[in-house]
């Protein structure tokens, strides 16, 4: 069989360019479609059609390009929840209102239990027990929704129980620095446990990790909305009951607040999945609005750092920069998770690159200030934890910057960036567990 003549060859090239121009079809996809088209052409020509006729028939059979492109787009942006909720198949998401209420109440009671313990002689026990319990319930809720295997539940329960008992076993003398640090890193470790449940135990899957990153951002938005509305309601209730001469501040603080906060964690997780379309539309817009603002803010900070001659040797400066890096990473992750893997490079990418580089430079200035401080005064638990977290974040952002740079220069795909971020997730877990477990005894629970 001879190759098609030059005219048909040019038609195929045009057709291919047109398919690629749809955006949702990657080059590999186009290769595959082209192989199909050529296979069909050969077949039709062999059965007696002229090459021009064969081309028309083969293209027609391929289907409307917009239909094909739409299907490819659907496949690329496919999310775990869609597979679980819509595509049917083996795993179907369970859980109506009754499940949400049940798990929500359990999370509320867990928070209330922590609250009760925190009011006693050992205030640190409140959060050291409350965090693993509440997030353990959130993870169990996701486990139940997925109908995952009992092994997943056993792993969730094991991690939560181990962290909680360790928190209670450590002889902290009140809410000391190491106790607070342990609680913070426990929060991070438990959140990744929630991710393990979210992925239905398939935590190695790149797609599941990306979905969980998305879930994290959307969960945070829902939590914020619920907290804002709940806070406003509590404020109004306080004012009205005070006008009636009834003091409800105690009841609100000891019951309504912990129960509400605990329950909200489950409700937010449910809302993310049940009302997916709502945020799916907002998330990319939010990122696009916040990235330029954040870039401006960080550049302003950088200018100020240069003008003022660097950071003062204050305790808080590195913590502030750590928080800033977390925000920057959050923006990067959020925009990455909102885009399809083959989205073309655009101004948002250049903006992200500028944001990350500015944040890294600012961090360098803070680290320089910190270094002299450590040399002068030695390591404290706070310094070690903030410094370590800083390194974990800087390593991530430095590679992110390099990948963004090569993407903007070569107009490459987004996939390497997304892979890097999903591969990095366990690093946070390892660091969180290390600090939570090892730091308190290292510094004698000070």
């Amino acid at each position, binding site marked *: 069989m001879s190759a098609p003549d030059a005219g048909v060859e040019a038609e195929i090239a045009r057709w291919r360019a047109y398919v690629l121009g749809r955006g949702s079809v990657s080059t590999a996809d186009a290769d*595959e479609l082209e*192989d199909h088209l*050529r296979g069909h052409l050969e077949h039709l020509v062999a059965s007696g059609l002229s090459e021009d006729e064969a081309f028309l028939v083969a293209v027609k059979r391929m289907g409307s390009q917009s239909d094909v492109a739409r299907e490819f787009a659907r496949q690329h942006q496919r999310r775990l929840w869609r597979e679980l909720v819509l595509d049917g198949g083996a795993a179907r998401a369970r859980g109506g209102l009754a499940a949400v209420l049940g798990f929500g109440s359990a999370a509320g009671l867990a928070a209330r239990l922590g609250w009760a313990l925190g009011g006693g002689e050992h205030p640190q026990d409140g959060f050291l027990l409350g965090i693993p319990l509440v997030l353990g319930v959130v993870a169990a809720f996701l486990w139940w929704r997925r109908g995952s295997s009992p092994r997943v539940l056993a792993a969730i329960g094991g991690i939560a129980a181990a962290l909680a008992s360790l928190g209670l076993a450590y002889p902290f003398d009140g809410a000391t620095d190491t106790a607070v640090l342990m609680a913070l890193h426990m929060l991070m470790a438990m959140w990744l446990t929630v991710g393990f449940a979210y992925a239905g135990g398939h935590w190695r899957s790149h797609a599941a990790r990306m979905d969980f990153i998305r879930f994290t951002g959307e969960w945070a938005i829902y939590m914020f909305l619920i907290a804002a509305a709940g806070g406003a309601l509590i404020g109004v209730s306080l004012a009205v009951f005070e006008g009636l001469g009834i003091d409800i501040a105690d009841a609100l603080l000891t019951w309504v607040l912990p129960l509400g906060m605990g329950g909200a964690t489950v409700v937010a997780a449910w809302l993310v999945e049940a009302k997916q379309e709502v945020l799916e539309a907002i998330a990319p817009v939010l990122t696009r609005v916040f990235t330029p603002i954040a870039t401006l803010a960080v550049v302003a900070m950088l200018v100020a750092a240069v003008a003022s001659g660097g950071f003062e040797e204050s305790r808080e400066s590195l913590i502030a920069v750590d928080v800033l890096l977390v925000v920057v990473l959050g923006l990067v992750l959020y925009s990455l998770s909102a885009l399809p893997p083959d989205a073309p490079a655009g101004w948002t990418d250049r903006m992200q690159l500028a944001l990350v580089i500015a944040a890294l430079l600012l961090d360098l200035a803070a680290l320089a200030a910190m270094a002299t401080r450590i040399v002068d005064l030695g390591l404290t638990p706070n310094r070690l934890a903030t410094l370590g977290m800083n390194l974990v974040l800087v390593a991530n952002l430095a590679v992110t910057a390099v990948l963004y740079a090569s993407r903007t220069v070569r107009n490459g795909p987004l996939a390497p960036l997304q892979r890097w971020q999903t591969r990095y997730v366990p690093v946070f877990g390892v660091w969180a567990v290390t600090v939570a477990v090892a730091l308190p005894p290292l510094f004698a629970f000070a």
Partner: protein
Amino acid sequence: MKVGKDLMAASAAPLVLAILAEGESYGYAIVRRVRELSDGELEWTDGLLYPLLHRLEDAGHVSSRWGVSDTGRRRRYYEITDRGRSELAEHRRQWAAVAAALQAAWHGLGDAVDGTMRPGLAL
């Protein structure tokens, strides 16, 4: 006769899995096999097969590799996985249940239709 869109969509995944259970294959060959198996009754839009194959791959039901065709073109070959085989078995159970129910329902209907068509016998 033309098979409806919904029915075609519902039967696409089990058909592809069943064809791949016969052995490794690629897109165009799968489409031809479908036409062959259905005597041309199932007319797929060829382009839509690929998003389906990729979805099956994401779900772990098939695996793919890039190879080279006889004429030297880059070609992507698909193979069914163990998970795909158990998924296929599940599809078979479900389709058998649907087909059996329809068969039973139409059996009764068939008699009624036959009855009206032969008024002489009914009288």
